[in-house]
């Protein structure tokens, strides 16, 4: 029944399966043919589609990328991604800032960035984090897709042991889920902002993670991040910290936004959504909408700054 529903009657306050999310995506595209389209940028290791929603009102625009769920067990991120998609489709033409944004740049949204892992969390192991590709010579399955990027790949803060949660994989971009984004970003050539969304320690981070070196844009990214977390806190008072990855949490090599930054995407960020100290990855579904709402306020700041400072 969920698959047959329109996006108006879709329940945004519960967690959904991969098939339900894909049905939601198709419904959103069908309901908004002049605004939303679906791009399949590749397939996962087990052959599932890597779908990206494209919100666009004109050809050849710069773009702002958002992905959720690269770590499959972080369910609030996929659920927030669904909410963002509906919010964008609903607010275009009504909200002045979002309308201005979409009249100038596209928004690209990958809701289930690690579909094999996500399906596995529903069917076999709720706490699964990695991809589901096998590792030759090991019984342990999967690679951490947030250690698989060609940015300090293989350095500290990632593991060479396939049985660990931060296993980096056999080579940079060895995971099809990662390679698909790499190929898409390169072929697009005009992505100006990039946000990768995780959970659950309430942080807004920017490069670098693999080195202590500051990016040339450190001060600007820091200021934008401060504005974003202030906007986020304005709704429910949720407190976020912000800063570069290595200074704020830990050294992490091979991370997503270090690669995107080094590709020339100046406005590269990573979110860690709610919550600290109570539920971790098992955030109750009644917190999905508040989480998405407050995150959207911060995302809006990041998108607006990118829109107004195209380079």
């Amino acid at each position: 029944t969920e698959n047959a529903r329109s996006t108006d009657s879709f329940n945004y306050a519960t967690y959904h399966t991969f098939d339900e999310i894909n049905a939601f995506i198709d419904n959103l595209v069908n309901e908004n043919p002049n605004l939303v389209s679906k791009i399949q940028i590749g397939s996962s290791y087990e052959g599932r589609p890597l779908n990206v929603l494209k919100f666009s009102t004109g050809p050849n625009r710069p773009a702002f990328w958002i992905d959720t769920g690269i770590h499959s067990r972080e369910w609030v991120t996929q659920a927030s991604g669904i909410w963002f998609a509906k919010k964008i489709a609903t607010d275009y033409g009504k909200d002045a800032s979002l309308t201005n944004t979409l009249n100038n740049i596209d928004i690209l949204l990958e809701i289930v960035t690690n579909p094999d892992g996500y399906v596995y969390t529903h069917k076999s192991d709720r706490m699964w984090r990695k991809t589901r590709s096998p590792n030759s010579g090991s019984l342990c399955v999967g690679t951490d897709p947030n250690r698989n990027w060609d940015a300090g790949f293989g350095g500290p803060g990632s593991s060479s042991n396939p049985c660990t949660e931060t296993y980096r994989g056999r080579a940079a971009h060895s995971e099809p889920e990662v390679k698909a984004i790499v190929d898409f970003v390169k072929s697009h050539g005009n992505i100006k902002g990039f946000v990768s969304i995780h959970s659950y320690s309430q942080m807004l981070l920017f490069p670098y993670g693999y080195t202590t070196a500051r990016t040339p844009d450190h001060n600007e990214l820091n200021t934008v991040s401060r504005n974003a977390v202030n906007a986020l806190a304005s709704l429910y008072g949720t407190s976020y910290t912000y800063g570069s990855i290595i200074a704020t949490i830990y050294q992490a090599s091979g991370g997503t936004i270090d690669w995107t930054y080094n590709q020339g995407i100046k406005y590269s960020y990573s979110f860690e959504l709610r919550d600290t100290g109570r539920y971790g990855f098992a955030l109750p579904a009644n917190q999905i909408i508040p989480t998405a709402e407050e995150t959207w306020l911060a995302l809006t700041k990041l998108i607006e700054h990118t829109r107004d400072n195209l380079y």
Partner: protein
Amino acid sequence: MENYSGQQVLRIFPTDEDQVNLVRALEDLEHLQIDFWTSPTKVLLPIDIRVSFRNLQSVKVYLESNNIQYSIMIHDVQSLLDEEQNEMRRNRA
């Protein structure tokens, strides 16, 4: 589905660099099968670990014998996941 009955998530509060390193050392003890929900990073930043029922006592003894403060963040992981599943079923119905 994997069953998480009896598993707990511990929130650890290291007060100095030595304690951070002691918690970090748990990562290398593969037989304990600890799932680091948040990693050991800096002093005063909490570390969350999911521990199987079988290894719970060993880990708690390790922390207590090293005077490392912790609290139980989730008393039974499976009960939270059961509630999550029940809610999904209710919503589908």
